[in-house]
């Protein structure tokens, strides 16, 4: 995260564009209502899908839908779509670290069953 930002600065000493700043943007109730609708709709979908047998795709689909809903919330309810690059990086940073935790730890659990040990 720090790396990225400082690069922007480095390439841009006079700082014509400041990645840390964004004008205050107001999201309208109309947009909010659309988001609201989408969320309810997809909640329905995720329940409906759960009752159909798709073998391995059940969890994948469930997670995909959940992620989509989360993204929508983050972008509009939480205004990230209109936030500075810094905020976007912050969000990315969190997901990145969680991925590290998951992948690196799984690397242990998965490879344990590879025999030899």
């Amino acid at each position, binding site marked *: *995260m*720090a*790396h990225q*930002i*400082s690069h922007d*600065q*480095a390439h841009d*000493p006079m*700082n014509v564009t400041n990645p*840390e700043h964004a004008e205050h943007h107001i999201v309208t109730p109309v947009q909010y209502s659309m988001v609201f609708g989408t969320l309810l709709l997809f909640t329905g979908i995720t329940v409906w899908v759960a009752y159909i047998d798709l073998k391995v795709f059940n969890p994948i689909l469930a997670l995909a839908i959940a992620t989509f809903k989360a993204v929508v919330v983050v972008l509009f309810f939480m205004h990230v779509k209109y936030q500075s690059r*810094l905020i976007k990086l912050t969000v990315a*940073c*969190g997901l990145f*670290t969680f991925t*590290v*935790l998951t992948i*690196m*730890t799984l*690397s*242990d*659990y*998965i*490879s*344990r069953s*590879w025999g*030899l*040990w």
Partner: protein
Amino acid sequence: MSTAAYSSNTIVLLPDQATAKIPKKNYINAEHGLLSWLLTGDHKRIAMLYLISITFFFFIGGAFAGMIRLELLTPQPDLVSSDTYNKFFTMHGIIMVFLFLVPSVPATLGNFLMPIMLGAKDLAFPKINLLSWYLYVVGGVLILAALVLGGVDTGWTFTTPLSTHYLNTHVITAAMAIFVAGFSSIFTGLNFIVTIHRMRAPGMTWFRMPLFVWSHYAASILMVLGTPVLAITLVLVALERAFGIGVFDPTKGGDPLLFQHLFWFYSHPAVYIMILPGMGVISEVISTFSRKRVFGYTAVAFSSVAIALFGFFVWAHHMFIMGVSNYSALVFSLLTMLVAVPSAIKIFNWSFTLQKGSITFETPMLYAFGFMGLFTIGGLTGVFLGSLGMDIHLTETYFIVAHFHFVMVGGMLMAFLSGVHFWWPKMTGRMYPESLSKLAAVTTFIGFNLTFLPQFILGYLGMPRRYHAYPPEFQVLNVLSTAGATVLGIGYMLPLLYLGWSLKYGEIAGNNPWQATGLEWQIQSPPLTENFVEIPIVDYEAYDYEWLAKKQKEQVTTVG
């Protein structure tokens, strides 16, 4: 270069030094009464509160260390019972790690200097800053409670299932204490990151920030991202202990290694949380006392960030023999080797900062040299342990004890003392007694090596750590170590005494006793509550000694 020569030769002639006196108005006498301290939002006062509480806990932890060394003077378990001994090293570990090392530099020096170095009036969230001090205190009190109620004997690593099912001491209290203290450090880190991003004075670009700030930035990222994982893990341990459920209990289908993964996911980055701020201090000190810009500023800055980044990828090297899959052991070992490189970069950059400098040897510099030497040993012995095969023989022995004490005590503590001496004039407006402090520095260095070098040998001979009694052939080395610990203890008592003394009787320091370039040295000491009369416009690079020389020439001429 006449100007430079002028500035660097004539410290005493400079106006603010000649006519130095404690400024009438400063953050210490701005308000009076205990309440004005306990409810303050001023980052400098909070730093002072931290300094006091941290010193308190440091000496408690030190007392436990003393008891441990005393017990180990003889092979037989004769001083205290096994349970007591286990409680000793547990308390020593918990207090030193969570209540001293983690907050040591960031919460005191960092708190005090960060805003000033950036040219801000305060941290971004003064109230949260105060809150994090109170959280720290609550954590400390809980630890003391656990101690008074009868202590904890899990070891600071809380290894399951031992901590969850096989002990009847106050594990939950201790876990909660660390949980709370953890949030204290989360808030500190959060405050720093926001301050660095949002509160820099005009002209203070990222690459004009002192390296002290850079290293704190890296450390803060680790605090914010790592600590919560520890928090949730300790919650799980507490729940499992309270209700006897088995997430970490193999007999109920849980996996005890999962605990260690989650625990070390924080506790390895924690090592960098502890050392990075210290590295920041060293950068400042080395540069100041060789009157020279830090060699390869960007390299040092980025190496901090690199350490923070890689720091998240190596935790399982604490578990090489614990039954992690050997394939992933391979991966983690490789990454461990990578994370060793940035530290090497730093060390060499500091060394070459000295080149062509104009070096003087005040106390902070002596401590800094101590840091470089000891940290080099600590770092390289880390490579021993990162190398898989070697780790099998060395881990869980005194070798590893010696290794992390070289990094934490030899590295971090030296840096802490270096920093405290370096900024003492700024924090209090008075100088510490130079000769006495030099003595202390040397004593610490000797005592430290005498304490921990023998432990490397003990480790290779195979003496396991956390042993209450040990085979007699190990005695000589243990005696040496204990002797060293005594010297070390004296070395740590001295500063406590003379720094306290200097608060009243130390000579007036003046604004810039070291002729340093940082923003903090351009304002009065002790500073105003607002730090700056008006927000400075930064138009010079970090460690720009020509700029300093010019500035002072003007001053002298104007003053006449």
